[in-house]
C-alpha cells in the first residue's frame, strides 16, 4: 500500500513537472515573440524616423552628406546612418541608409532621393540621354553617347525592350549607364565601351532595369496653350525667334513640321504630325546647363540629313530615327516607341532637359523644398 502511494505520488510529480515545464516553455516562447514583435515595430519606426530627419537635413542643404556611418540615440533605441551619392538604376541619386537597433532587433531602411531638388521636378522619362519605350538600336560605326561638355553628367540610356548595338566592327562609346528591360544584344569584340562618368560605387555599367513609364503626348490637347497656331504642315528655316526661360514661346503645328535654322530664346514646338529635321538646328547662345528648345510630337521624329548639328530635347510618341551619318545631337531623346540610329559617326551629346519646357505639358514635381523618395526598401 505504502509503495503504491509513493509510486502514484512520484508519477504525479513527474507528470505535473513535465506539463509545467512544457507550459513554461510555450509561455516563454509567446513572451519572446511579443518582445520580438514590439522590437521589430520600434526598430522599424526608428529607422524610418532617421530617414525622415536625414531627408529634412538634405532639403535644408543639398550638399549634406554623411559618408561614414554616424550613430545617434533615437526613440529609445539607436540608429546608424549614412547619406551618400550613389547610382541606382542608372540614375545619379542620393542614398539614405539607416540601420536601427532596438532590444537586439535590427531593421534597415534604404531610400533614394534626387541629387538636386530642381532636377527632381524633371520627370524620370526626361532624365535620360536616350529613352526608348520599345527597342534602342545603334546600327553604325563609331557612334558615341556622351556628355555635352560636363563630365558630372552621365549619358544614360534605357530601353523598355531590347538594346542592340551593331557597330560593324568599329567602335561605340557611351559615357553613362546602359539599362534595358528585356535584353542587351552586343558584340563586345566590336570595340564597345560603356563607362559612366560618375560611378562612385562601382555599379555595373550595363544592367537590367524595370521599364520606365512614358506618357502619351497629345499636341492637339495643348493647342490652346500655344502662342502661335498652324493647323497644317509648317516649314521653318533661318532665324526662329522664341521666348524666355520663364515664358517660353509655344508653337502648335497641326500637320508635319520641317525645321532647320537658328533658334533664339526658349521655346517649344508641339506637333500633331511628324517632325523632320533636315538641316542644322542651332541655338544662337546655348545654355550650358540645359536645353533651350523642345520638340514634342504625337507622332515621329526623323533627323534626315547627314553631317548636321541639332540642339533640342525631343519627346515623341512614335519612333525617333537618326537616319544619316555624321549627325551631332545635343540634348535628350525620349520616344514612346523605338529609337534607331542608322549611320556612322553619330554623336549624341547629353544635355539635361529644361523643366520650364516640360512643365506646361507634363506632370512635374512641386519644385518645393520637399524631396521625393524615388526608391524605398525595408529589410
Amino acid at each position, binding site marked *: *500500500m505504502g509503495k503504491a*502511494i509513493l509510486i*502514484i505520488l512520484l508519477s504525479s*510529480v513527474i507528470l505535473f513537472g513535465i506539463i509545467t515545464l512544457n507550459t513554461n516553455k510555450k509561455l516563454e516562447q509567446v*513572451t519572446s515573440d511579443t518582445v520580438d514583435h514590439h522590437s521589430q515595430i520600434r526598430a522599424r*519606426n526608428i529607422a524610418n524616423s532617421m530617414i525622415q530627419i536625414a531627408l529634412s*537635413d538634405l532639403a*535644408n542643404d543639398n550638399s549634406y552628406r554623411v559618408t561614414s556611418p554616424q550613430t545617434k540615440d533615437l526613440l529609445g533605441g539607436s540608429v546608424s546612418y549614412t547619406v551618400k551619392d550613389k547610382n541606382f538604376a542608372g540614375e545619379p541619386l542620393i542614398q539614405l541608409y539607416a540601420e536601427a537597433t532596438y532590444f537586439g532587433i535590427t531593421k534597415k531602411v534604404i531610400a533614394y532621393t534626387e541629387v538636386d531638388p530642381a532636377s527632381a521636378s524633371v520627370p524620370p522619362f526626361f532624365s535620360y540621354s536616350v529613352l526608348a519605350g520599345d527597342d534602342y538600336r545603334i546600327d553604325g560605326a563609331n557612334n558615341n553617347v556622351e556628355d555635352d561638355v560636363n563630365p558630372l553628367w552621365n549619358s544614360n540610356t534605357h530601353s523598355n525592350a531590347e538594346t542592340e548595338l551593331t557597330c560593324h566592327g568599329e567602335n561605340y562609346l557611351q559615357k553613362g549607364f546602359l539599362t534595358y528591360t528585356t535584353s542587351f544584344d552586343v558584340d563586345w569584340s566590336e570595340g564597345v565601351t560603356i563607362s559612366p562618368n560618375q560611378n562612385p560605387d562601382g555599379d555595373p555599367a550595363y544592367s537590367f532595369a524595370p521599364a520606365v513609364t512614358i506618357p502619351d503626348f497629345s499636341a492637339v490637347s495643348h493647342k490652346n496653350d500655344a502662342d502661335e497656331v498652324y493647323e497644317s504642315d509648317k516649314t521653318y528655316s533661318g532665324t526662329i525667334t522664341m521666348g524666355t526661360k520663364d515664358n517660353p514661346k509655344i508653337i502648335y503645328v497641326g500637320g508635319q513640321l520641317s525645321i532647320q535654322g537658328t533658334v533664339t530664346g526658349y521655346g517649344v514646338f508641339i506637333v500633331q504630325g511628324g517632325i523632320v529635321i533636315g538641316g542644322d538646328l542651332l541655338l544662337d547662345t546655348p545654355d550650358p546647363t540645359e536645353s533651350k528648345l523642345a520638340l514634342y510630337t504625337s507622332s515621329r521624329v526623323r533627323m534626315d540629313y547627314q553631317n548636321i548639328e541639332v540642339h533640342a530635347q525631343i519627346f515623341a510618341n512614335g519612333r525617333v530615327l537618326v537616319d544619316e551619318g555624321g549627325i551631332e545631337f545635343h540634348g535628350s531623346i525620349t520616344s514612346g516607341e523605338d529609337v534607331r540610329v542608322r549611320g556612322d559617326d553619330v554623336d549624341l551629346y547629353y544635355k539635361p532637359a529644361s523643366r520650364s519646357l516640360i512643365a506646361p505639358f507634363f506632370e512635374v514635381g512641386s519644385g518645393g*523644398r520637399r524631396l521625393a523618395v524615388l526608391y524605398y526598401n525595408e529589410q
Partner: protein
Amino acid sequence: MNSSTFLLLAGGILFFTNLVLTFNKTSSSQALVVYENECFIYGESLSQGLIEEIQTRAFDENTVSGTVDSPEDLSPANSMGHEGGEDSMNQFDDIDDFNNYSYTDSLSGHGNFVLNVSVYYINTSLPDVISNLPTFSKRVDISMDNPYLESTVIVSKIFSY
C-alpha cells in the same frame, strides 16, 4: 492500515493537493501572461496602424496644397490640432490634426483599447527634445491603454518635411 501508512497516505494527499493548487495557480498566471501578450500585440498593432494612417497626411496645414520654405511658415507650436470643419479623422488633412485625437477599439474578451495621440515639434538636431517653435520635424506619440495591461504602451515616430 497501520499508522505509518495512514500518515504516508495523508501526507501524500496533502502533497498532491498542494501540487494541484500550485499547478492551477501557475496555469492561471500563465493564461494571464498569454492574455496580456495578446492585448499587447493587438494594441500595439492598432497604434502602428494609426501611425501608418497619419503618415498619409500632409506635414502641415500650410503644405496641404502648397510648399513652405521656412519653419516660420508652419503652424505655430501652440496650435496643434485639427482645424474647424475637420470633425472626423477622415477629414484630417495634416499630421498635427491628430494632436489630442482619441480612438477606442475593442476586441472580444480583451476589453477596450484606448489610443491617445499627441503631436509636437522636436528639435531636429536633438530629436528627443520638444521644441516650442515650429521646426521641420514633428514627433507623433500614440499611447495605448488596456485594462489587462499594467502600463501604457507608447509607439512613436518622427515625420519631417
